[in-house]
Every structure is written in structure tokens, then in C-alpha cells.
């Protein structure tokens, strides 16, 4: 067995070298104009989240400032203060970065891990495992997501980590499906066939040959699903169903609405958290799109913008398109199909 594997290695079969280390991938993103924008935005937010206590000029939780109620932006309060409690909005915004980033990135990374494991297992093992997983995906797709999230927070509680858990439990399906269809293609490539003939175990093939082949998709989807989860988290907090102890942008918007920002014209109270959400989501989304472009240059512009619309507050249109693809192109949607479907040439 070991000898066989050595033989395969010597022949260079299945030893697809890892195309790029993390460092050069970052370099590629940085070299890309749009990628630079995304990296700068994300990097900026990470710095803000880490150094929040040093950046925020006031205590965001301090609700005892009777004299500062409802102040518009000034040099003393950069983004003004809240009307009902006199909290400094800039400080709240800075602290809110933490919740958004931690929930978004943690969920994004966990979704990438869970989704790729499940997708690879379904695609490579096939048979009963595949059937079971795909049935599960079908079932999860028909239940409306936001209502399900609300019910689950009601039943399981609204703790910070439980909310992340719920997002991961409901968020892996899309990635798993895409990875599965990519794996169905990879499974039939020569290097995998060669590894099989050389007697490599299924575990070895899955971890060494199949999984690396999906890495670009996984990295890209981490960025995109982080962005999607940030929107979802903001929505949940806006409904008052997020972690009650944390300051988050969604909750700030909810407080602005209930605290009379609309009635008293406190535009700063609404725009500040909205700007935070926008920066974070836009930054991560840019990063995801650029990563996708780097991984697959032929798909200069793909459906990933479009895929984002299937985040919690949107329709299932994209799913229909995907299921249509299942009939017609059978898995080529992620690889070879790209050139054919998005390439240039036969335009009317």
C-alpha cells in the first residue's frame, strides 16, 4: 500500500502542487484594484474591532449622560448622541464592529468547514450518503429561513454563540451543493483516477486530492457567506432578537427607530449604523468576488453577486436557476461550464 503510494508520488500523479500559499493569494488580491478596496475595508474594520476601547472616546454603554441627549455630530461627539439616553454614537459604532465581525467571520469560517466537508463527502462517497445529504438540503431549502432562525432563537436562546450556531446550522447548504457538483467533476479527473488505481485510500483521496481542488471555492465562499451572515445578524438584532447584552449595528438601528430618531430628525443616529453595515458587507463581498475572479479568470463575472441575494432576506430565484443547471449541465456550472456560459463570442 505504502509502496503504491510512493510510486504514485514518484510519477507525480495526484501530486497537484498547491497552487498558492496564503501569502501569495493575498498578494494576488492586493494586485487587483477591486481586491485592494476590499482588503483595505476589511483590514480597517478588523483594526477598529481589535482596538475598539482605544478608539472609542466614550463608554458606549454609558446611559447616564443627561446633558448630552440628542446632540448632532460635532467635534466633541463625532457622530452625535442618541436622543433618549445620550450615548455617544461613534463609540457605539466602534464597539458594534466587534459583534458584526465576530458573528460574520466565525459563522463564515464554520460554514466553509462544514459545507466543504459535507459537500466533499456527498460528491465523492456518493450512494446513500449523497442521497441522504441532498434530501436534507432539499428539506432545508423549503423552510423559510428568517422565520426558522427566529423560532430557533426562541427555543434555544439568544446567546451570542447560539446565534452563530444557528447561522452555521442553516447556512451550509448552498456551499455544500456547489462543492458537491465540483467534486463530481474532480472525481473523474485523471489524477484522481490515477490515485485510485495506485491504491490510495478514499480518505487519502478526499483529503489530499479532492479537498485542495475545492479550496478556491471554499475561500471565496467564506468571504461571501461572512457578508451574508452580517446582513442576517443585523436583521435579527434589528428585530430585537439578537444577543441582548451586546451593542450591534442592527440593534442601534432598532433603538433609533423606537427612540424617536425618525420623529426628531436625528439622521446621524440612522446613517451611522447603516454605514457600518454597508462598509462591512461591501468589503467582504468585494473580497469574495475578487477571490472568485482570481480562482477562475474565465468567469470574470459570475453569479456570486446574485448568489448573495439568497441571503436571509431574499427570494429563492437563484435556487431555481441552480436546479435548472442540475438538469442541463450537471456540475459543469463551476468549472468548464464557466467559459461556455460566460465567455465571449456568439452575442446576438
Amino acid at each position, binding site marked *: 500500500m505504502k509502496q503504491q503510494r510512493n510510486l504514485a508520488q514518484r510519477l507525480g500523479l495526484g501530486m497537484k502542487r498547491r497552487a498558492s500559499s496564503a501569502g501569495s493569494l493575498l498578494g494576488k488580491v492586493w494586485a487587483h484594484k477591486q481586491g485592494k478596496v476590499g482588503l483595505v475595508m476589511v483590514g480597517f474594520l478588523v483594526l477598529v474591532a481589535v482596538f475598539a476601547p482605544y478608539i472609542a472616546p466614550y463608554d458606549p454603554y454609558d446611559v447616564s449622560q443627561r446633558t448630552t441627549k440628542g446632540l448632532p455630530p460635532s467635534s466633541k461627539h463625532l457622530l452625535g448622541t442618541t436622543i433618549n439616553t445620550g450615548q455617544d454614537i461613534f463609540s457605539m459604532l466602534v464597539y458594534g464592529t466587534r459583534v458584526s465581525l465576530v458573528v460574520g467571520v466565525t459563522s463564515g469560517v464554520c460554514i466553509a468547514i462544514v459545507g466543504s466537508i459535507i459537500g466533499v463527502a456527498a460528491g465523492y462517497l456518493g450512494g446513500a450518503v449523497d442521497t441522504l445529504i441532498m434530501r436534507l438540503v432539499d428539506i432545508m431549502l*423549503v423552510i*423559510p429561513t428568517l*422565520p426558522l432562525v427566529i423560532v*430557533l432563537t426562541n427555543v434555544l436562546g439568544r446567546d451570542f454563540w447560539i446565534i452563530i450556531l444557528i447561522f452555521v446550522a442553516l447556512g451550509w447548504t448552498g456551499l455544500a451543493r456547489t462543492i458537491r457538483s465540483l467534486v463530481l467533476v474532480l472525481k473523474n479527473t485523471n489524477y484522481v483516477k490515477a490515485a485510485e488505481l495506485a491504491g490510495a485510500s478514499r480518505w487519502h483521496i478526499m483529503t489530499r486530492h479532492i479537498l485542495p481542488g475545492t479550496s478556491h471555492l471554499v475561500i471565496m465562499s467564506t468571504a461571501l457567506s461572512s457578508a451574508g451572515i452580517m446582513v442576517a445578524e443585523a436583521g435579527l438584532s434589528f428585530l430585537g432578537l439578537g444577543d441582548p447584552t451586546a451593542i450591534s449595528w442592527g440593534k442601534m*438601528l432598532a433603538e433609533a427607530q423606537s427612540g424617536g430618531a*425618525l420623529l426628531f430628525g436625528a439622521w446621524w443616529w*440612522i446613517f451611522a449604523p447603516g454605514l457600518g*453595515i*454597508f462598509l462591512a458587507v461591501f468589503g467582504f463581498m468585494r473580497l469574495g468576488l475578487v477571490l472568485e475572479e482570481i480562482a477562475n479568470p474565465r468567469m470574470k463575472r459570475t453569479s456570486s453577486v446574485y448568489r448573495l441575494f439568497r441571503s436571509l*432576506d431574499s427570494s429563492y430565484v437563484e435556487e431555481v436557476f441552480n436546479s435548472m443547471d442540475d438538469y442541463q449541465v450537471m456540475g459543469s456550472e463551476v468549472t468548464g461550464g464557466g467559459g461556455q456560459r460566460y465567455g465571449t463570442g456568439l452575442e446576438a
Partner: protein
Amino acid sequence: MKLSYVIKRVLYSLFVFAVVITLNFFIPRIGVDDPAERYYPPQGNMSEIEYEIVKQLTREQYGFHVSTWQQYLNYLKGLARGDLGTSFRPGSPKVLDLIAERLPWTLVLSVSTMLIGVVVGVGFGVVAAVKRGRWQDTLLLNASTVMVALPAFFIALILSFYLGFEWEIFPAYTDSTMVSQFAWTWEGISRVARNAALPVMSMMVGSIISYAQGTRNAVIAVTNEDFVLTARAKGLKTSTIRYKHILRNSLLPIVTSLGMSISGLIGGQVVIEQVFNWNGMGTLFLEANNTNDYPLMMGIMLLLSGFTIFAILITDLVYVLLDPRVTVGDKR
């Protein structure tokens, strides 16, 4: 071949529905031994004996006194009769009646959002696909990436702030007379339209862009199909190819997806209804959540899931019947 596919597809949909029903039954029972505790959480001012009595009464009223298995059977029997259960609200109204009261109001928002989204979005998408790479296309791409990063409820707040409060063009909160004094008169309908303006406007941006992106990609995909090449080889006029061959074929998936997208729209609409205090199913769902009214929550979920399953089934069947190239069976 096709008939056996239809039967298989129907049976599969029924299977999915059965699983969803089962999930709906068990989700509220996670983490508690007794559903009565969900209905009536322990209160500080109540002694243990009093609480026990209250729970016992609750159990008998809602049929929680029998075994879980028996409750599940009763739930299924009720569903078979079209009974979604009894709400925990005072007066024990039927879940179905509560939903029926709110559903039309919700559909007003989602259907008009969808219609505007489809009409404008498809137009925009076709233009972007035809002018691929030019400014129209770039505009769509940039608009998509910007708008997708702005949550609908934030857009709703901004619209409510300016159009509702500052300039007072549209009502920022739903007028309660819209429901109570509704009549099929010009006045009644225009009142609904005025109140629906802001919610629809906040949701339609995402809808338009989503349909535009979908149309653009579908049109480009069809443009690269062989039959378009054939049509060009035959020397047909570009406009004929564009409208008769490409458009007709690329719009099929969009038209068939409309039914499916309704449920998703309603699900996402929860937040928007909350912002504008709209008297729809989303608000009903949040009310149910705040009062731990599980039968009502699960009833709404079941209705939405059931509708999605049905719409997907119809979509699949229509697609198979209409598109001669779709061969059914395992082509893996």
C-alpha cells in the same frame, strides 16, 4: 417516461412535506419536557402548586396530556382536516383564521414588490445582457454590489425618515384605518396604495436587482446555445433572433420561478412589516414569537414551506413539459 417522472416527483414532494410537518411538530418541543411550560413559563409570583394546576389546565386545553406520540398523531389528524392548530392567544382562536385575516395584507406587499421587480428587473437585465461590457452592464454590476450591502430594513428606515417624516409624502406608519375601514372603493384602495408605497419601495430595490442579474445571466447563457448559432447561420435578422429565440427561452426560468420566490419574499418581509407596522403575516409571526405562541408560529412556517414545496413541484413539472431538451433520468 414522463409520467413516471411526474409520479416520482409528486411522491418526493409529499415526502419532503411530511418531514417538514414532523420538524414543525418537534421544534417547539426541543429542550422542554412539557409543552405547557412553553405556553406558560414559570412565573415568580406563583407557588409551585398553583403553577402545577395552571399547567394541568393548559395541558388539557391544548391536548398536551396525552403521550407525545399521540399528540403527533392528533396533530397529523388535525392537518388532514385542514386544522393548523389552536393559538395560545386568549379566546383560543384557530391558527388558520388568524393567518387568513393577515395573508391578503401580506400578499399585497409581496406580490406588488415581485411584479415591479420582474417588470423593471427583466427589462434592465435584458439591456445589460445585450450591451454586455458597456456602461449599462457596468451600472447593473455596480448597483448590485452596492445595493446588496444595504439591508432592506436600512433602506426602509431611510425612506421612512425622508419620505415619511421629513417631507411627509407617504405615511411612515401604516394607518390603522387602512384595515378597519377597507372597502373596494377608490378611496379604500388608494389608501392601501399610499400606505404600501414605502414598504414596497424598500423591498423592490433588491427585487429589481435580483431579477436583473438573473435575466442577464440567463440571456447570456441562452445566447451561447447551439440553436442561436443555427439561427444566425440561417441568416436570420439579429432582432428576430434576439426576441424570438433568445428572449423567449431565457425568460422561461424566470417566469417559472415566480411562484417559488413568493414564500421567500414573505419570509424576508417580516423585518419590513415590522418597520412600517404593517398588518401582515410578518407582524403576526413576530407577535407570536413575543408571546411564545408556538402553534401560530409553526402554522405560519408550515404554510410557507408547504407553498414553496408546491411551487417547486409545479415549476419542475412545467419545466419538464415545456423544454424538450430536458431528458429526465440519471445523467450523472
